[in-house]
């Protein structure tokens, strides 16, 4: 035998059983682990496996359309095209072609390459949104070369668009995407184990008291979900978002409307928002949010690890593909008349800033809410750059402020009709009594100036010529309480209830208020109040409704801006009736006196708006106003060179037309426009002429034919 001799192996013998024992022990650990995974933790992993292969594709609902009263589209949706790129499929040749088709310059191209490089490996096989809202040429180029670029997909997504751009921007409002700020973190205590509570506290980085409070809140075995955090910071949001799998009892709910949440828990409807969905942020877009948004649908599909849809045997998934179509949002029909808005815009040419409101005298339907300067809503949709926003914010004409109802002003002389009524309804008040105006009014040692020396005036003359002295005298008789009381009757210092854009309530200063803020009450304050100065502040909408009440004989209407809600096919969902707020119960003879005076303001030769009247046009009644800027508190935020302008008075005109059968009330303010008769009245005249002149020539013709000096009120 060439084979080597056997060697003694006895030495090894005693070690085999230890080796075997070691092997068995180590295998036991593995077996234990497999049992743990497959038996103990099975449910959890099975859920993960299910999550892996089901992908829910949201199907966004089409947002409802906003139309004006004549059916003109105010806000609608246009398709925009997004480019999704699958980095894995982008060879250098593809990148070349793609950059070519998109007509990229060097910078954009480097940017594309950098983004492609930065995609983490595990997401390289996924479709990632790279560009949004590409232009027509890019779209056409990409579609032509579709087959040569397997890694590029173009997807359509609706984008909100506003055909009237900046016209009525404040009232229409805009939409944008929900953000971390809109979310609320909810947790269901019953579904939270101790360690999960600890994990949640860690994720939210709560320490000390906040942490103890959270633990206490979640340790009650309640089935009702409780609010944990509102809103989370972006970091907290993303951490909670990505830990969702480990925290089944925790929910992130988008609540952009800040509305109190009602009875979640049983049968609670899922949040209508998910990351990427849009929400109305201002104006009517925010007001009508719950009608406009519709209900998003979804498609639940089976996907493989690369996120691509799989057509493999659905038995594998143990779940069916599901589909729920989106329910489009409802349309709003507005009371606004965009043509009228355009008219107002044209009439405002030449004035850098101001506002105007037109309301329907009989019903309070708002026909125009115009605030100048404004901004293009489409810019808000595309997203403003920091500079653009800063520019809007720092513009001294304040384009971001809605001057029709968010801002309030001293009404100036437009307040005088109210003062007049406060006097007229007093016992023993004689409107025919004459007061001598010598250009000023002495009270104690103080001289209060008038616009000029009007001589002897009665109430009619005082209103027509806007004599302050008459009203100073009147104020002394009437007193502050009664003036305020009548102002309140006409809706001043109360929100009109239009329901949009956090309306200002305006302000009426009382005796107590003066004592508290000015140390003591002085009679001069009451005198100022009677001529619309003092501390009285009103919004344009309030004044428009008040003048509407003057025009219609004494009914104050609740303003209405949405006429009806309709299904996309036009079916009526809800129609809003006009709502009277109150009947002012002004005796007719007093109302007649005031309205006759308002007619005189425009139509009498000595009327303050006489120069602005339009012959052979619509007859207008109204009142001019020249409101001084808070005397003593000139704006300091503007450069002194331009301070002269910003310290100028605001020019007002408030009125209604046609005089004989009032249809609309109008209020115009030209900020820093100077005298109301010169700056504001012509605007009002032009608007009314264009609006009513075309709409109801008959009314105007009747007025001329009648040639009555004292027109009666319609209705």
């Amino acid at each position: 035998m060439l084979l080597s001799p056997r060697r003694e192996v006895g030495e090894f013998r005693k070690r085999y059983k230890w080796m075997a024992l070691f092997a068995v022990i180590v295998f036991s650990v593995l077996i234990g682990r497999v049992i743990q995974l497959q038996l103990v933790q099975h449910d959890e992993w099975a859920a993960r496996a299910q999550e892996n292969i089901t992908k829910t594709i949201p199907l966004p609902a089409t947002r409802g359309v906003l139309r004006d009263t004549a059916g003109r589209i105010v806000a609608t949706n246009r398709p925009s095209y997004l480019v999704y790129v699958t980095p894995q499929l982008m060879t250098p040749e593809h990148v070349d072609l793609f950059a070519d088709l998109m007509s990229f310059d060097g910078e954009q191209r480097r940017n594309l390459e950098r983004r492609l490089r930065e995609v983490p490996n595990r997401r390289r096989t996924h479709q990632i949104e790279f560009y949004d809202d590409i232009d027509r040429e890019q779209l056409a180029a990409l579609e032509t070369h579709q087959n040569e670029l397997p890694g590029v997909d173009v997807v359509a997504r609706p984008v909100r668009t506003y055909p009237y751009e900046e016209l009525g921007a404040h009232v229409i409002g805009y939409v944008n995407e929900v953000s971390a700020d809109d979310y609320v973190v909810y947790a269901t205590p019953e579904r939270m184990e101790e360690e999960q509570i600890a994990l949640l506290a860690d994720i939210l980085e709560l320490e000390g008291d906040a942490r103890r409070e959270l633990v206490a809140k979640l340790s009650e075995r309640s089935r009702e979900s409780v609010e944990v955090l509102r809103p989370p910071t972006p970091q907290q949001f993303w951490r909670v978002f990505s830990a969702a799998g480990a925290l089944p009892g925790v929910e992130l709910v988008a609540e952009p409307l800040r509305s109190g949440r009602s009875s979640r828990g049983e049968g609670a409807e899922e949040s209508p928002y998910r990351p990427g969905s849009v929400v109305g942020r201002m104006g009517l877009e925010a007001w009508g949010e719950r009608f406009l948004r519709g209900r998003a649908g979804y498609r639940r599909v089976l996907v493989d690890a690369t996120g691509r849809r799989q057509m493999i045997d659905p038995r594998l998934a143990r779940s069916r593909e599901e589909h729920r179509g989106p329910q489009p949002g409802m349309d709003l029909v507005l009371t606004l008349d965009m043509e009228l808005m355009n008219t107002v815009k044209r009439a405002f040419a030449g004035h850098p800033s101001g506002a105007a409101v037109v309301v329907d005298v009989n019903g309070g339907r708002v026909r125009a809410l115009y605030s100048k300067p404004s901004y293009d809503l489409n810019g808000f949709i595309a997203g403003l750059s920091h500079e653009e926003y800063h520019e809007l914010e720092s513009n001294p004409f304040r384009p971001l402020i809605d001057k029709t109802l968010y801002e309030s002003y001293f009404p100036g002389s437009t307040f005088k009709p109210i003062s007049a009524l406060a006097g007229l309804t007093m016992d023993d008040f004689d409107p025919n009594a004459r007061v001598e105006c010598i250009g000023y009014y002495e009270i104690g040692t103080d001289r209060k100036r008038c616009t000029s020396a009007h001589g002897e005036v009665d109430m009619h003359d005082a209103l027509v010529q806007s004599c302050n002295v008459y009203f100073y005298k009147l104020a002394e008789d009437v007193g502050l309480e009664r003036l305020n009381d009548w102002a309140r009757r006409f809706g001043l210092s109360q929100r009109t209830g239009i329901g949009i854009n956090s309306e200002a309530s305006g302000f009426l200063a009382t005796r107590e208020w003066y004592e508290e803020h000015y140390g003591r009450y002085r009679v001069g304050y009451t005198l100022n109040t009677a001529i619309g100065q003092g501390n009285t502040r009103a919004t344009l909408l309030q004044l428009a409704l008040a003048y509407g009440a003057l025009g219609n004989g004494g009914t104050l209407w609740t303003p209405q801006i949405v006429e009806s809600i309709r299904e996309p096919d036009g079916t009526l969902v809800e129609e809003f009736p006009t709502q009277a707020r109150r009947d002012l119960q002004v005796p007719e003879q007093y109302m007649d006196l005031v309205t006759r005076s308002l007619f005189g303001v425009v139509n009498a030769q000595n009327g303050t708006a006489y120069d602005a009247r339009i012959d052979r046009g619509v007859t207008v009644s109204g009142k001019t106003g020249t409101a001084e800027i808070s005397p003593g508190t000139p704006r300091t935020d503007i450069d002194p060179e331009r301070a002269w302008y910003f310290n100028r008075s605001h020019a007002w005109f408030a009125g209604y037309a046609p005089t004989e059968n009032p249809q609309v009330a109008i209020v115009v303010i030209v900020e820093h426009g100077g005298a109301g008769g010169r700056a504001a009245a012509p605007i009002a005249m032009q608007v009314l002429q264009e609006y009513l002149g075309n709409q109801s020539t008959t009314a105007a013709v009747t007025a001329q034919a009648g040639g009555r000096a004292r027109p009666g009120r319609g209705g």
Partner: protein
Amino acid sequence: MALVRTMRDQFDWGLFVTSCAIAVLGVVNLYSASSAAGARADIYIQQIYWLTLGAGVAVLVVAIDYRNFERNAWAIYGAGIVLLVLVFLLGRSIRGSTRWISIGGFSLQPSELMKIFLIIALAKYLHHDPKTEGRTLKDLVVPGLILAVPMGLILAQPDLGTALICAFIFGSIMVLTNLKLRSLVTLAAAFVFSAPLTWAYLLKDYQKGRLIAFWSRLTGNEADILDTGWHTHQSLVAIGSGGVAGKGFMQGTQNQFRFLPDQHSDFPFSVWAEEQGLLGSLLILGLYVFLVIWGLKIASQAKDRFGAVVAVGVSAMLFWQAIINVGMVCGLLPVVGMTLPLFSYGGSSVLTTMIGLGLLMNVSMRRFSHA
């Protein structure tokens, strides 16, 4: 005729049936794994070719008395080293490492075969060094060198998994001998102190990433699931979602929808566990336990030191590969490229395992020889 009779009488059915069972279940499992969308559909056919080739080689290995291997051990070892060097000269680089050489259309991974050659070389050395008293460090120098040369070459490819298995085989074999406590302690200390150096100089970034991922999983931090820990996470999902009964053959969603990486070579156990459930997992693990214990039994019955060391070496190879592979896919160990013997797809791996099993059979069948 005598040989045939010997074969028939002394044939180790336990070893044969266990091995066949693993191989057959492996092919069945690969059939399912390769049916996944976009996967190479012919993988299980390839595996059958390799198993057939491996069976042929194994028959040859069994037919030759293992003492012939003992006599030619250095030549065999030398050939292995030459192959490893050739890898650097002719090798083909895949994913950053050079492990394969092409031989007539096939790719061969010499580091796999080297495990067997290393076992034979160590067996040869111990066979001729029948020392029974405790081994000091000095006694470990020669076997250490026998390990170090191929291990260094394998690490240089780099092929961390195979190098690790070589070290574990070496360790297992040396434990079989009478090591002095001091030698053991010194070895252990050397291992511990080399760890930071290994981290700093030897490990590539992706390997460090895997260790970090493993560590963060152990410490309960799942934040990196989406990055390096992704593979392990998906493997756990596959295994765990299988449950007790499994989702059924070809019904594993993790497998079919390609959530498992390398489901043929590194993660076939996950595919199996998902589709066959806990019962299937226990069956496979049980087969490996049986195989390892059986291998140790064969070693204990070996008539000489060479046979005993070879049997222990092969058992250790099967044991460590099974433990590391399953431990890895179960998330108990960091991710490292390591095949599950006979169950994983891979020509060189199948061939090596078959040769090893052939050696076991050889030793088993010749336990009654009295030559």
